[in-house]
């Protein structure tokens, strides 16, 4: 509400107390800070106008014309606003709907303008629809309007028919559907609306403006030489738009998308941008702009200026009342002069001022102004001096007040203009006197009317006898009153009031208390004054006031103190977030160009040319030239050190490459086994499914069990087990789930029938005297043996259970063997690329493919069975499968050596190197030979065949082994000489090392060993099936082995254990046969677990690699393959963490830039050192959120308040992805590169937590939108998710740097 409207109300509505109006004015000073600037200016400007504009003849006319002007302005403003809304909608939504609420309000606004000041003749005397009348009139002389009239009348008739005709009428219904615009609200401004849709509205208004004199009164908007054309031109835009009826089902009630919000903001919030991002200054005490805007203006005459100024509300005095054109007769010989009467209250005194209009308007020349006679007439009366107020109400004028002071002198009468101003004045005065003084008798409050003069008919004091008593006029309203101003607390001053006006005073005294009390309570209702504000409780009130004052001051102080404390805490907290040394962007040289090729060349030529710090500074402020990224990134990520010479760098590369190849060799081997296992499972699952529902019900328990154990759930479970043991950080829920499922299955297994158990039990019964259990020494490992064993066991039980109906099983079983016979050629071909150092990675797939080509011939049937879901994976898997047998032999050898090594305690190197090798040869030969199955025989041949080339490769690897010895020490070196294929010694990650609680040197064997049971498992089922009838033939093997697996566990978990011994047993067989007294018997269980773990991770990686940035052109299948290789290698070395979604996203940009597997692997490893903590297992995310929170609190308190409304860290979940992936998903690739390198170098240049500041910059850039729309948590999440890849990095990075600087400054000037 602007001041002028206050005045307006005041003029028109006498009962509206001016005090409210001026309180509104008082509000201004508070309001200034919270209200939009527009409001503030309008108020101030009007005040100034009121005081200063001298051209106005009298203030009252000034006000009148002002009111009209204001009305016109308001009308035009409304139209402006609506036009803006519609245009905005048209831009953001591409079309405007006819029923849009904007259209409705727009039409209403236009109608108000068109009707404003319309001549009654033009409006049509009797017509209810004035617009219709007007338009019809216009139509007579203006063709477009004529057409419009016709159309609108048709529509009107339709509406009419709709109203009159009953709704059942088919005809009208049909017509209504044809013209569906006749919704209730659309008929409201039908004429304007139709004109708009017909696009003639602007033309008609132009016509109206041109011929305005014909239709309008002189104060009309359209008559105005300025406003009229403005209005007409405003309408051109909306009339050019297309309006549509078409809409989607939920067109109206969808939330605006993020894009729309941003666009809207751009359109109407452009001007706010300057103050953004922090409208409120960060961490500053706000100064109150308590002085009015006039203060700053230069004043021609200080004293006069001061005086005029003193008439305003200012920081020293409150303006309680103001009224212009109050007539005063300054001198007897003068006419009454109108002037401005104002009532001011300061802390101590209340002053009444009257200033002649001549002074107010400043119509006198500047020179004369100071010396104007009117200064003499101006009055300043201290209300303390006044005792009595005589009020006289005349019929013809507003009323007169005569003030009588203590000394009995009467002041010149103040004659108020008409309209209840006298009463308002009194009311203001009374309010102003509180709490120290009061008016006696008090004014009465009357509901609905506000304050009224007291009715005094019952107040005639019995013995007063005063003839002039105001209570004379009992029944009628009294016209004359005498009020006394009382200051109850300082009554001593008025102990003896002058007897000049004695007659009134004694009259009131007797009734004083009572009346004031009652009115007091009445007043308290309306005024909100404390009910104990009666004069007989004055003393407590004073006390109360003092108390309150003290309280306010103390609260203010403690508030300030708390604020300061908070500030210092925040400072200490934030100081860790930034480096304290501020790096300048332009010293020593301008860094905004970034790291250019020239600089980089110079640096490479001469490493002393630039310091590392300087280079980092360049990158921080200007980024790396895109062409250089491939070279520079390894430096930034720590792959190279800046000081390294070229040979040194080459050396690093070599090491990394070797290491990468080794790692890859390891996991590829593991993967081959996994693939094999999976293939069977897939085949089984599909077979099961395709075998139909009839089998389904019968084999349901089996299926259920099988699936539970042999797929990811079991793997995740085992990984849970394992991670519980290792990390103690995984969710226990899934473990619980799994365990309970296990129980269920146990029962099912029991009920399932004896035949499943029989097979294993037979050997049990035969051979009870087994060798000690492998588990016995490691109780903790039993868990794993249970799960892993069962997961394998499920197959056996299934097999045996399904044995009668051999249908699907045999298919699955038959699928398994084919690769093996084919392998003799395979392993060599496949293995060589991995082995030989000269072959580049690029060649590898092709080589593999070649080897696959050999195999493919025999695999046609298998392919169909295998699930193709993995795209090209199966092919690769096949290649690796081909390698399998070789691995098997490796493992056997590895295992043997492993066992030998501890035995010999690695003292005699030469001895051990020789012995195990022989062992292997003989052992494998033995085992294979002893087995009756034909495939085994085949295999033993293979293994022998494949071992031959390995012997050759041993020499080759000897070179690599040299490296390894450095890392792994003697035992590893020993092994590496022996094992061509186990280069795990230098593995830096302690994945299983920790759990295995074995020496480092044993870890390789563990990996390899896990393959042993696998190898056997893969053969086991069908092998056994093949000789189902001939159990006895293998009995010596099985029999010897099975007790080992079951013996100890049987007692505890008889049912469960009995299911899987056959699968542990082959492994055990070898153990038993070869190394009866093996010191490391528990390893197979570990390895099984590891295998599961790896399988699980492999699945996750595959899933994510397949869907990683397929839109980006770089990621062709070949490059995705690279991505996968690197990821698998990394995970292989960090199995304790495993793959977590998002890692692929972090790797992808590195690979894109570096385009080299080994290099990307190394850099990714470096990158993950920092990023690892952000993943769920790291726990850094909460720290990020907390920091983010503090930063927002400090730098943007307004936004913080919005976010704080619901108050916990979940509100920063919209940042989750930002921090997890370093904004990779928020930005397009090119921007990701720029942001990443800035983040990396920011650690040295400004802050190790630069991500926080980028996040902050993102939030700040959209802060206005967030605030404008009052977004809550969900809105913000939605907004930022929709804004992904739409951010402007050119804006964000500089802002982020600026924010860092801001915080640095904040910490610096403590």
């Amino acid at each position, binding site marked *: 509400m602007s001041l002028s409207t206050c005045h307006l109300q005041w003029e028109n509505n006498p009962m509206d107390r001016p005090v409210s109006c001026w309180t509104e004015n008082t509000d201004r000073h508070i309001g200034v*800070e919270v209200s939009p600037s527009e409001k503030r200016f309008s108020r101030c400007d009007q005040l100034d106008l009121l005081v200063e504009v001298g051209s106005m003849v009298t203030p009252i006319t000034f006000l009148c014309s002002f009111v009209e002007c204001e009305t016109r302005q308001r009308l035009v403003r409304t139209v402006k606003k609506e036009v803006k809304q519609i245009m905005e909608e048209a831009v953001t939504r591409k079309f405007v709907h006819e029923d849009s609420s904007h259209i409705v309000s727009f039409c209403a606004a236009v109608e108000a303008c068109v009707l404003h000041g319309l001549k009654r003749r033009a409006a049509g005397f009797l017509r209810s629809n004035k617009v219709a009348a007007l338009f019809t009139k216009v139509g007579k002389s203006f063709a477009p309007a004529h057409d419009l009239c016709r159309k609108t009348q048709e529509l009107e008739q339709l509406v009419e028919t709709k109203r009159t005709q009953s709704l059942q009428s088919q005809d009208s219904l049909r017509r209504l559907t044809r013209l569906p615009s006749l919704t209730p609200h659309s008929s409201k401004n039908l004429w304007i609306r139709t004109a708009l849709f017909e696009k003639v509205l602007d033309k008609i208004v132009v016509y109206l403006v041109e011929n305005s004199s014909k239709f309008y009164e002189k104060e009309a908007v359209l008559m105005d030489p300025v406003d009229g054309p403005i209005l007409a031109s405003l309408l051109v835009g909306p009339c050019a738009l297309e309006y549509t009826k078409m809409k989607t*089902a*939920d067109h109206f*009630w*969808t939330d605006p998308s993020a894009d729309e919000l941003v666009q809207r903001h751009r359109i109407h919030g452009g001007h706010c941008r300057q103050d953004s991002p922090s409208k409120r200054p960060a961490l500053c005490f*706000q100064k109150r702009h308590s002085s009015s805007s006039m203060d700053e203006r230069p004043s021609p005459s200080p004293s006069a200026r001061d005086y005029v100024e003193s008439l305003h509300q200012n920081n020293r005095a409150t303006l309680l009342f103001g009224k212009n054109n109050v007539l005063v007769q300054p001198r007897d010989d003068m006419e009454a002069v109108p002037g401005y009467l104002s009532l001011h209250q300061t802390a101590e005194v209340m002053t009444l001022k009257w200033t002649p209009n001549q002074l107010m308007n400043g119509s006198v020349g500047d020179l004369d102004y100071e010396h104007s006679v009117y200064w003499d007439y101006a009055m300043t009366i201290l209300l303390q001096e006044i005792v009595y107020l005589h009020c006289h109400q005349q019929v013809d004028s507003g009323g007169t007040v005569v003030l009588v002071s203590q000394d009995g002198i009467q002041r010149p009468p103040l004659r108020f203009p008409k309209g209840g101003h006298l009463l308002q004045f009194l009311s203001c005065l009374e309010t102003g006197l509180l709490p120290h003084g009061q008016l006696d008798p008090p004014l009465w409050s009357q509901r609905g009317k506000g304050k009224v003069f007291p009715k005094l008919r019952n107040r005639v004091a019995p013995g007063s006898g005063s003839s002039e008593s105001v209570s004379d006029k009992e029944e009628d309203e009294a016209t004359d009153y005498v009020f006394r101003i009382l200051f109850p607390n300082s009554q001593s001053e008025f102990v003896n009031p002058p007897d000049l006006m004695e007659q009134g005073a004694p009259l009131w005294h007797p009734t004083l208390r009572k009346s004031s009390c009652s009115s007091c309570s009445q007043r308290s209702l309306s005024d909100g004054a404390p009910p104990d504000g009666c004069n007989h409780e004055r003393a407590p009130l004073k006390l109360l006031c003092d108390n309150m004052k003290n309280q306010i001051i103390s*609260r*203010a102080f403690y508030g300030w103190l708390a604020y300061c404390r908070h500030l210092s805490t925040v400072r200490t907290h934030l100081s860790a977030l930034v480096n304290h040394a501020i790096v300048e962007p332009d010293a020593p040289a301008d860094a905004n160009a970034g790291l250019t090729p020239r600089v980089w060349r110079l640096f490479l030529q001469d490493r002393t040319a630039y310091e590392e710090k300087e280079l980092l500074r360049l990158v921080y402020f200007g980024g790396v030239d895109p062409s250089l990224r491939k070279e520079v990134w390894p430096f930034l990520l720590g792959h190279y050190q800046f000081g390294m010479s070229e040979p040194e760098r080459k050396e690093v590369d070599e090491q990394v490459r070797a290491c990468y190849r080794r790692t890859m060799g390891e996991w590829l081997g593991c993967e081959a086994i996994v693939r094999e296992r999976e293939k069977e499972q*897939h085949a089984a*699952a*599909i077979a099961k*499914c395709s075998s139909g*529902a009839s089998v*389904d019900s019968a084999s*349901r328990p089996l*299926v259920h069990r099988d*699936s*539970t154990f042999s*797929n*990811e759930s079991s793997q*995740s479970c085992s990984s849970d087990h394992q991670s519980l043991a290792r990390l103690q950080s995984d*969710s226990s*829920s*899934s473990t*619980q789930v799994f365990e309970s499922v296990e129980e269920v299955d146990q029962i099912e297994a029991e009920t399932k029938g004896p035949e499943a158990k029989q097979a294993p039990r037979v050997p049990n019964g035969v051979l009870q005297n087994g060798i000690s259990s492998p588990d016995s020494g490691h109780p903790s490992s039993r868990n794993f043996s249970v799960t892993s064993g069962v997961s394998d066991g499920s197959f056996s039980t299934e097999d045996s259970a399904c044995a009668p109906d051999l249908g699907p099983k045999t298919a699955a079983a038959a699928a398994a063997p084919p690769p093996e016979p084919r392998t003799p050629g395979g392993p060599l071909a496949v293995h060589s690329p991995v082995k030989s150092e000269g072959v580049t990675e690029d060649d590898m797939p092709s080589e593999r493919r070649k080897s696959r080509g050999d195999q493919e011939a025999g695999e046609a049937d298998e392919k169909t069975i295998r*699930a*193709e*879901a993995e795209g090209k994976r199966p092919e690769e898997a096949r290649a690796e499968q081909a390698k399998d047998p070789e691995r098997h032999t490796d493992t056997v050898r590895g295992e043997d050596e492993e066992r030998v090594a501890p035995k010999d305690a690695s003292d005699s190197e030469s001895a051990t190197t020789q012995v195990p090798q022989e062992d292997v040869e003989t052992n494998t030969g033995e085992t294979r030979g002893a087995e009756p199955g034909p495939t085994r025989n085949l295999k033993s041949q293979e293994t022998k065949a494949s071992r031959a080339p390995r012997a050759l490769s041993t020499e080759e690897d000897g070179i690599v082994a040299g490296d390894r010895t450095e890392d792994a020490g003697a035992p590893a070196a020993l092994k590496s000489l022996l094992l061509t294929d186990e280069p795990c010694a230098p593995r830096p990650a302690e994945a299983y090392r920790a759990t295995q609680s074995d020496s480092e040197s044993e870890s390789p064997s563990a990996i390899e060993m896990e393959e042993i049971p696998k190898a056997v498992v893969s053969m086991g089922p069908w092998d056994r099936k093949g000789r189902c009838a001939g159990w006895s033939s293998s009995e010596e093997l099985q029999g010897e082995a099975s007790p080992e697996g079951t013996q100890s566990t049987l007692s505890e978990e008889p049912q469960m254990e009995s299911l899987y011994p056959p699968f542990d047993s082959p492994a055990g067989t070898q153990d038993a046969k070869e190394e009866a007294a093996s010191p490391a018997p528990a390893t197979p269980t570990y390895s099984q677990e590891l295998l599961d773990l790896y399988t699980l991770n492999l699945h996750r990686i595959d*899933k*994510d690699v397949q*869907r*990683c940035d397929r*839109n980006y052109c770089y990621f062709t299948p070949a490059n995705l393959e690279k991505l996968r290789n690197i990821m698998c290698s990394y995970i292989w070395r960090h199995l304790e963490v495993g793959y*977590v*979604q*998002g890692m*692929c*996203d972090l790797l992808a940009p590195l690979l894109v830039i570096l385009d080299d597997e080994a290099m990307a692997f190394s850099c990714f490893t470096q990158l993950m050192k920092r990023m690892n903590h952000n993943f*769920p*297992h790291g726990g850094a995310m909460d720290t990020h959120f907390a920091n983010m929170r503090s930063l927002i609190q400090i730098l943007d308190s*307004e936004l913080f*308040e*919005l976010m704080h*409304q619901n108050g916990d860290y*979940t509100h920063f*979940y919209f940042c*989750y*992805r930002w921090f*997890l*992936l370093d904004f990779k*998903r928020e930005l397009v690739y090119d921007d990701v590169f720029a942001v990443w390198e800035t983040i990396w170098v920011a650690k040295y240049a400004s802050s190790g937590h630069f991500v926080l500041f980028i996040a902050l910059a993102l939030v700040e850039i959209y802060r206005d939108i967030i*605030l404008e*729309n*009052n977004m*809550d948590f*969900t*809105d913000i*999440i*939605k907004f930022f*998710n929709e804004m992904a890849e739409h951010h402007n990095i050119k804006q964000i990075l500089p802002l982020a740097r600026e924010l860092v600087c801001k915080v640095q400054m904040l910490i610096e000037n403590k």
Partner: protein
Amino acid sequence: MAKTYDYLFKLLLIGDSGVGKTCVLFRFSEDAFNSTFISTIGIDFKIRTIELDGKKIKLQIWDTAGQERFRTITTAYYRGAMGIMLVFDITNEKSFDNIKNWIRNIEEHASADVEKMVLGNKCDVNDKRQVSKERGEKLALEYGIKFMETSAKANINVENAFLTLARDIKAKMDKKLEGNNPQGSSQGVKITEQPKKSSLFRCTLL
């Protein structure tokens, strides 16, 4: 933002990673299919407003990351959810088996009366099917929840599934309202009487 709906339902999509949660949601909210979706990180949601019995219902559907590692985050959203879609992939048996784990998870973290539904997604690729429809139905029967086979790619049943879930939620809510006295709609779902977000204005004095 203007509230132009009668009810707001919060739904949640959960299930193993890669079963097609995001695609199902995308199909429902945008009626499109995108084969190049990337894994969901953190949490996202989409909105679609539907009309049921003349009531406009705004469905706020939260899409979660599938990997268990992110469960700490996703479970935070279980609480407010009124309906949960459990999605598995019919070509991936383990995703089906894990439905049990997910249900257990829901029981732990979500409110007891949350509406649930199981979706077997990717039913367009029948030749790679690993989980028969009967098994899905059996599991659903076991837990007393509805089951549907959907395909985001072929647009089979997606719309239907969400509408069914929304209808169930609404029915449950209406029943609850009936059960209580008519005024007892203190469930905070009726949006019309939802208090407006408190204004930003704060007194700057202290």
